[in-house]
């Protein structure tokens, strides 16, 4: 049912695609040869570049693993609205990399009867990196300028929540998570290669027990890497979080989680790209023991 719904929605959105004329796809001047517009033997135009950081993203696939909630296989439905707009200075040099996503959601269902197994939602994620061709550290009073090897940035997540059928009367809320990022990515094909300390606050709420607060007071680290081909057809992302979280009541406990994801656009309908994705993740600690998960599926992008 979920699959049918997603396909119907994808078809409806794809059907509303605007007509394409040369110059539209890459934002280049009308009439100029646009590297993002291809033409067939009959001269008909079609888009060949996409921005994987923008637009509505709808994914449907399968997730596998030995533990709940993906044990035995589960249907995996995801939704995200992504926004990306980098800023350039008047002289044309890159100043800001800005990636945001709104209302990221994921639902895991038992294949066949669509019984929900787990759900996750995140209202907002923002990732901002300030780029300088020659990074520096400035002492403002005497205006002493010292070389600094990194771009700097912040990752902010707000309004996160997750639920798992294994603990049906319990939910994990994540009001705020933020990380200071030092980036060495260079911002070409490797859009981001950043690391830094993390601060986070979570609350585990339950109908049957008092709330358990979790604090990560810069006692965890983040690694975030993302590479995208110049035409946006392929993307590779890696993220890692690990360190110590303090549960109250409870105590400090270590946790680590890592995710590697790859995506490749394989076809487009009315210039709306459809990509195959594969993803693997490992988790450990955090009161849940170790788990591993893998998933594959099809992802439709609207407005990329």
């Amino acid at each position, binding site marked *: 049912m979920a699959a049918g719904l997603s396909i119907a929605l994808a078809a409806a959105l794809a059907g509303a695609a605007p007509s394409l004329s040369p110059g539209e796809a890459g934002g280049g001047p009308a009439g100029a040869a646009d590297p993002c517009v291809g033409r067939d033997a009959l001269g008909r135009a079609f888009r060949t570049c996409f921005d994987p950081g923008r637009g509505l993203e709808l994914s449907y696939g399968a997730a596998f693993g030995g533990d709940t909630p993906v044990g035995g296989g589960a249907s995996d439905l995801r939704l995200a609205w992504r926004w990306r707009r980098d800023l350039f200075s008047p002289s044309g040099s890159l100043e800001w990399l800005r990636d945001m996503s709104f209302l990221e959601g994921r639902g895991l269902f038992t294949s066949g009867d669509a019984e929900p197994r787990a759900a996750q939602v995140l209202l907002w994620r923002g990732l901002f990196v300030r780029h300088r061709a020659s990074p520096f550290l400035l002492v403002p009073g005497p205006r002493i300028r010292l070389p600094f090897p990194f771009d700097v940035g912040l990752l902010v997540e707000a309004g996160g929540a997750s639920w798992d059928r294994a603990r049906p009367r319990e939910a994990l809320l994540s009001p705020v998570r933020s990380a200071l990022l030092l980036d060495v990515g260079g911002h070409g094909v490797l859009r981001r290669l950043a690391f830094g300390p993390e601060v986070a*606050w979570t*609350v585990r709420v339950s109908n049957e027990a008092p709330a358990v607060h979790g604090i990560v007071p810069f006692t965890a680290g983040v690694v975030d890497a993302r590479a995208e081909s110049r035409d946006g057809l392929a993307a590779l992302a890696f993220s890692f979080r690990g360190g110590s979280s303090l549960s109250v009541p409870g105590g400090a406990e270590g946790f680590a989680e890592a995710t590697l994801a790859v995506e490749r656009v394989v076809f487009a309908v009315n210039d709306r790209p459809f990509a195959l994705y594969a993803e693997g993740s490992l988790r450990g600690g955090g009161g849940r023991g170790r788990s591993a998960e893998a998933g594959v599926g099809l992802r439709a992008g609207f407005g990329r």
Partner: protein
Amino acid sequence: MTILHALSILAISLGQAERSQPGPGEDVPLASPRLVPAEKADKPDAQPKQPMRVKEGAPALQLDRTTRCFERAGGGKWRAQCDATTKRCLVAPDAELDAEGLAVTGLDRAPACTVPGWREDDLVAQGYQMIPALAETPPGWHRDERQRIMQVSFDLNRRIWLGAGWGAGGFPWSGQGEATAGVRLDVPFHLLNAPALARIRALETYAAFDGKWADFTAFGIDASRAYPSPLFRITTFIGKPRRFDPPLFVGGWLEVLRVETFRTSAGWFDRTEGGAAALTLDLWRSRDLASFVRLRGGAGYEKTTQLDGAAWVPHAALDLDLTLDRGGFHHLRLTALSEWLSTTGTNRYQPRDPATPRLPARRFRETAKAEYEIILLAVNDQPVSAVLDVRGQRRNDVPGLSDRWNVQGTASLRFNLWAPPRRDAPAQEKL
């Protein structure tokens, strides 16, 4: 003369040359420098025969005037602004320089120079004087002698911050490290043909490192307006008639979803304020409305997990937010807040657990906070600030917490992202 040349001269006449002050009806013709079709040098490694260092005290080109590419006999990339009236040209290197004064890269935050440009030899022949200068700099930024640009004015009212510090004092959670994060955004707008300012706060978070205290505000906004005419005025007729305009500037204040959670000797106390609204009265504010001294009065609604019922909470406050210097490096903030709880529900907002002592019928919270923030340094134009604050609170709405004043002092560092130049930042006039 080509059309391009004619347009260029027209552009100079209209946009670049500063006009002298003519008398009434007097039309002063401006002599324009002769334009030559010098192409902009597109070789970034084009080096001059002599280094292009900018000397201390050199004037800066202005952003609101046209800058043309400039050819000099000695080579190199140059840009110039010429004044046909004074016959002076400000000439700056069109590149960032290395320590030896040689071009290393293009200018940052400066528009490309206009072509066709000028040749020095032509202008000198016409009697123009060449003044060594610094390239244009946007307001709030500074170029050094190598023309490298850096931000020197910071608007901490537009930022995302992430910080950590240490607090010491009498609260149960004092003596711990503290993490803080949040978003601030000032949005100027016009309301009924008068300038106004909305001050947005979002995701403001303070949390103790030991997990026993957290204070989170999802969203808050207040708005004030520069009234073109006073709400009322007083005229006195004792002696010479005089008019007084009392500084009554009314605004609004709103807060949505604040969660305060901490642990006392009686256990956890999780208070959720669904929302609060208030009217504000600015006793003083700066011209740009960013700094103010303000009275605030309103009410909110709250519930607490450990208490039955809910409470309406009228409040009165004095808020002060001052930016103490033009560069935005020093900030002083102060809040004195009184809240009175008007309880509702059958159990009148009392502890659910019968073993917990009952709270008094008349409940209050009195809070005072003074905060001084100073920018210490900037990393890639993103400021790092130090915050010293003193907080005091007296309240009788929490089981297990003393109703005497508790005080805590906190010192912290914040990394601030964005913080663009202040809206009233001046442009650099000289090196």
